[in-house]
C-alpha cells in the first residue's frame, strides 16, 4: 500500500476515536451510546496501522477483495447503531408517555384544589 493512503487511513481512524473520546469526556455522549462507535474506531485504527490483518482476515471469511470486508463491517456497525437508536427512541417514548399521563392527572388535581380553595376563601369572606 502506498504511503499517503496508509497515513490517511490511520489519521481518519484516529480522528474518529478522538472525537468519540472527547465527546465522552465532555459528557456529551453517554457510554452506552458510544460503545459501537468505539468498536468501529478501534477496528479502523487496527486495520489502518496493520493492513496485513485485513489481508489475513478477508480470505479467511471468504472475501475475495479485502476492501469488501471493510465495507461489510462498516455497514454492519451502522445498522447496529441505527437499531440501537430505534430501541432507545421507543424507550424514550414510553417514558414521555408516563410523564404526559402524570402531568394530565396532576393538572386535574391542581384544578380541583384551586376550586376548593376558591370556594373556601369565598366562604370566609362572607362569614
Amino acid at each position, binding site marked *: 500500500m502506498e504511503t499517503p493512503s496508509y497515513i490517511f487511513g490511520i489519521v481518519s481512524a484516529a480522528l474518529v476515536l478522538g472525537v468519540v473520546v472527547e465527546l465522552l469526556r465532555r459528557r456529551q455522549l453517554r457510554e452506552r451510546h458510544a460503545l459501537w462507535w468505539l468498536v468501529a474506531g478501534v477496528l479502523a485504527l487496527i486495520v489502518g496501522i496493520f493492513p496485513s490483518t485485513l489481508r489475513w482476515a478477508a480470505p479467511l471469511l471468504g472475501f475475495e477483495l479485502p476492501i469488501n470486508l471493510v465495507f461489510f463491517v462498516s455497514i454492519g456497525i451502522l445498522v447496529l447503531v441505527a437499531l440501537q437508536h430505534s430501541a432507545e427512541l421507543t424507550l424514550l417514548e414510553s417514558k414521555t408517555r408516563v410523564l*404526559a399521563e402524570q*402531568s*394530565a*392527572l396532576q393538572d*386535574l388535581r391542581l384544578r380541583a384544589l384551586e376550586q376548593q380553595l376558591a370556594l373556601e376563601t369565598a366562604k370566609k369572606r362572607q362569614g
Partner: protein
Amino acid sequence: MVESAWERTLVVMPAFNEEESIGDVIREVFAKLPGMNLLVVDDGSVDDTARVARKAGAMVAVLPFNLGVGGAMRAGFKFAIERGYRNVVQIDADGQHDPASAPRLLEALESADLVIGARFAGEGEYRVTGPRKWAMRILAVTLSRTAGARLTDTTSGYRAAGPKAVAVFAAHYPAEYLGDTIEALVIAARSGCVIRQVPVAMRVRSGGVPSHDPGRAAAYLGRACIALLFALARPSSPGLVRDA
C-alpha cells in the same frame, strides 16, 4: 344495586379534537346515566375540546400532546386507580356509543373482568364489507380463541373493565395504533381476565363517516394482522400475572 355500582364506576371518554360533538355526548351520558362520574381525556386536542367538556360538567384530564386512544385510556385507568373507582367504562366522544347500553355492560361485569359491547351480535345495523370485514373476521376468530370466549367485534371501543382488568390496564395499556383494541384483549386474556361480549347498537358517528375506500380497508387489514401477530408473539410480561 345498580346505583351503588355507578358510584364506583368511572366513564372514561378519550377525545381528540371533538369540540363539535363532545358537548352533546357528555350531556347525553349525564341524561341517561344520572350521577355518573365522567372523565374526559383530552388527547392533545388543538381545538376547544377541553373547555367544552368542562363546561358540560365532565372532569377533564388534558394530555400535553396526542398519545392515541390507548394512551388516553391508560391515563384514564390510572386516574381510576388513583381515585379508587372499581370499574371503568370506555365511551367514545364521537357519539357512536349509546350510553343507554352502559348499564348492560356493567351488569355483565358481575361475571366477567372485561366486557365488550359488540356491534354485530344481533343488535343495531352496522355493516362492513370487503377487506375490513375479512380483517374483523380474522381478528374475531383468533382473539376468541385467545380469550376463550366467543367475540365477534374485537375492535369495538365500547368496553367495560372490572377491578382486575383496570389494574392490568393501568400498568399495561398499549398506545400503538389498533393496540388499544387488539393487543389490550390479548393482554387481558393472558393476565387471566374473563372476557365477555354483550350486544349493543351503535349509531353512525356524529362527525365523519367510516371509510369504505378499499385501499384503506386493505391497509387496515394488513395493520390489524400485524398488530395481532405482535400481540400474540410478545412474551407475557412478568408483572402481569402476579396480582390478586
